């Protein structure tokens, strides 16, 4: 019997993986071949999906991107024996895109079926939890602090400090909340992890519960990710059956369980306090801080709010130690981060690398440049609230502080590439439009500023009082940055101002604007990096 791996995640399904499987079964039957199809998680090489792998003498040979109509020629080429074919990518692990990564959080992703708990355990799963179960809570928190892990959701706040605050709260009931509201365009790492290696998240949340003294976890999952819900719920059941979730985990007196709560299409609920309100069944309105969620969070009780990838990085830290983890990375950006290369890009996908890799390496060496093969015009890093970076400013190491210095946002490592056809004034108008639609409405700069901003940019684009409106737009940006309650209003100016500064010719041909000193993104007013208080 020959093992064939076909991924089961959303990306593979979106390019017809189920049809490929159907075709494989039909053809194998017709040809009298004995095949065993394993629906594994994705390796994250989206550009090769649907990526088939055939196990030949214990080695997996990759073929992709495969369409259902390629199956006949694959059989004809003898792919069951590793035969050559135009789609053959060679040994999976030797594909440069994968080989040149440093996979810690995603180390298991793609190896096996996402719900195969024995494969999970066999590939060093649950070692972190086993180690943690033998440690006092403070020692777990110290290990996570020592690793230098910072919030992977975008704000990069040290995870250990949050945990320590929650640990110190002398209250019987505490919560672990996993923020799985991955709403930013250009990001899909949370989704891949939940769909392809859900036990890692379960293990990470369990360790967090053990560390701070919480017995209940919630995953706030966006409604656009229905497959994540299915995978996680199946994984919960398997973990409970095997004693890794629920009462008396691994025979100890530690109990912890997890519930999923679905979001309902609101972007701002990715902000942690809005998320807490939404989890409580309320409008997803941002809360003023303090009180910090770690002291007064969900239902008014101490709550650790961490992003999916922060929690999913904990198992390897508790398995191999904080020292091992912090050996990766540079400066204060320790460990690895899964970059997500997206937009107009030839080889889009997930690339986990240590901090310090540069944008050109990610965009060109991994990504292969633009899909359309037209010159690159701009790159937006860190989601819709991240600034646009011009093609001549790409030479930046991926490091939180270096990005902040350059007036940009590393955020969660989502990278969206645009070619020369992009109209950056349309992108600026969109940034305001998006903010107007998604603002929670609590603070005035965001609620009204976004609407006015959209109007002003539209006027500039229409050539109405350009000079006056240009300065008005910049003033409005300053006000929103300084006066908004959260990053939604506070960072919407980032894409707007960067587009205005770097691409004024996309807005107007007014010589006064084009000749003026750029008073925008990179001047002294700008570096108002993501304000994270916790």
């Amino acid at each position, binding site marked *: 019997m020959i093992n064939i791996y076909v991924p089961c995640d959303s990306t593979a399904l979106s390019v017809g993986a189920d049809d490929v499987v159907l075709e494989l079964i039909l053809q194998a039957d017709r040809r009298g071949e004995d095949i065993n199809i394993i629906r594994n998680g994705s390796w994250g090489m*989206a550009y090769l*999906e649907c990526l088939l792998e055939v196990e030949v003498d214990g080695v997996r040979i990759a073929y992709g991107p495969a369409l259902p109509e390629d199956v006949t020629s694959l059989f004809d080429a003898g792919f069951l024996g590793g035969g050559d074919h135009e789609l053959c990518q060679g040994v999976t692990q030797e594909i440069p895109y994968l080989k040149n990564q440093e996979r810690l959080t995603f180390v298991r992703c793609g190896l096996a079926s996402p719900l195969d708990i024995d494969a999970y355990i066999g590939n060093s799963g649950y070692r972190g939890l086993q180690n943690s179960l033998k440690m006092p809570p403070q020692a777990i928190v110290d290990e996570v602090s020592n690793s230098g892990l910072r919030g992977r959701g975008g704000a990069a706040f040290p995870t250990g400090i949050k945990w320590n605050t929650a640990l110190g709260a002398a209250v019987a009931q505490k919560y672990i909340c996993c923020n799985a509201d991955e*709403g930013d365009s250009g*990001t899909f790492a949370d989704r891949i992890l939940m769909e392809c290696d859900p036990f890692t998240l379960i293990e990470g949340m369990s360790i967090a519960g053990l560390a701070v003294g919480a017995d209940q976890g919630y995953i706030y999952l966006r409604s656009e*990710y229905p497959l994540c819900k299915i995978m996680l719920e199946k994984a919960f059941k398997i973990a409970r059956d095997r004693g890794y979730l629920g009462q008396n985990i691994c025979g100890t007196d530690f109990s912890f369980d997890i519930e999923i709560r679905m979001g309902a299409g609101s*972007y701002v609920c990715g902000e942690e306090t809005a998320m807490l309100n939404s989890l409580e069944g*309320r*409008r997803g309105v941002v809360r003023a801080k303090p009180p910090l969620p770690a002291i007064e969070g969900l239902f008014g009780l101490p709550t650790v709010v961490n992003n999916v990838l922060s929690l999913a990085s904990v198992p390897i830290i508790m398995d191999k130690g904080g020292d091992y983890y912090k050996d990766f990375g540079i400066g204060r950006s320790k460990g690895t981060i899964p970059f997500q290369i997206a937009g107009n890009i030839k080889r889009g996908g*997930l690339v986990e690398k240590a901090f310090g890799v540069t944008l050109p390496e990610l965009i060109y060496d991994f990504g292969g440049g633009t899909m359309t093969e037209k010159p690159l015009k701009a790159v937006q890093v860190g989601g819709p609230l991240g600034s646009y970076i011009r093609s001549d400013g790409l030479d930046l190491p991926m490091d939180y502080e270096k990005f902040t210095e350059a007036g940009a946002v590393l955020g969660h490592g989502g990278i969206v590439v645009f070619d020369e056809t992009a109209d950056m004034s349309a992108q600026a108008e*969109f940034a305001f439009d998006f903010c107007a639609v998604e603002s929670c409405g609590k603070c005035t700069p965001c609620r009204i500023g976004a609407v006015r901003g959209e109007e002003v940019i539209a006027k500039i684009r229409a050539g109405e009082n350009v000079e006056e409106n240009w300065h008005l737009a910049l003033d409005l940006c300053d006000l929103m940055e300084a006066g908004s309650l959260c990053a939604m209003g506070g960072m919407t100016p980032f894409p707007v101002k960067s587009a205005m500064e770097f691409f004024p010719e996309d807005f107007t041909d007014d010589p006064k604007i084009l000749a003026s000193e750029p008073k925008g993104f990179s001047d002294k007013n700008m570096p108002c990096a993501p304000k994270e208080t916790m």
Partner: protein
Amino acid sequence: MAHQKWDKETAKSLIQKYSSLQGGLLECMHGLQHHFGCVAPESMDLMASAFNLSRAEVHGVFSFYHDFRSSPAGHKIIQICRAEACQAMGSRGLTAHVQDLLGLKLGETSENGNFTLESVYCLGNCALPPNVSVDGKLYARVSPEKFNKIMTEGA
């Protein structure tokens, strides 16, 4: 998608089930919409009394979230991702094409109830844009031609 017709008793028992869930109002609305295809205006009072909230509070939650609708959508729900990664690969042009083809603007349902066209901000498949979802099934790298094919081959 097949949904049940509004029925007060069924709604009541559904709401009752969710009201014991701590902070369960959103889950309750999801449950109602899953069952009836919408969160019917008639259900607002029922939720208010089950969750011990005012009608205004319940309506406030309902109206805050894009997902909830007060009347059922068309038979096919078509969502076009209009976020940045998809914009970088032509989602604006695709949107114009789909609007022309269906004779609908974003947010509208056709008069015969066949289609609802919506925008969505990120389907999480940004490495293969532009993306479209039809009744929850995700399609990647959707050109106008590919969209026509998805429609005619009965996605």
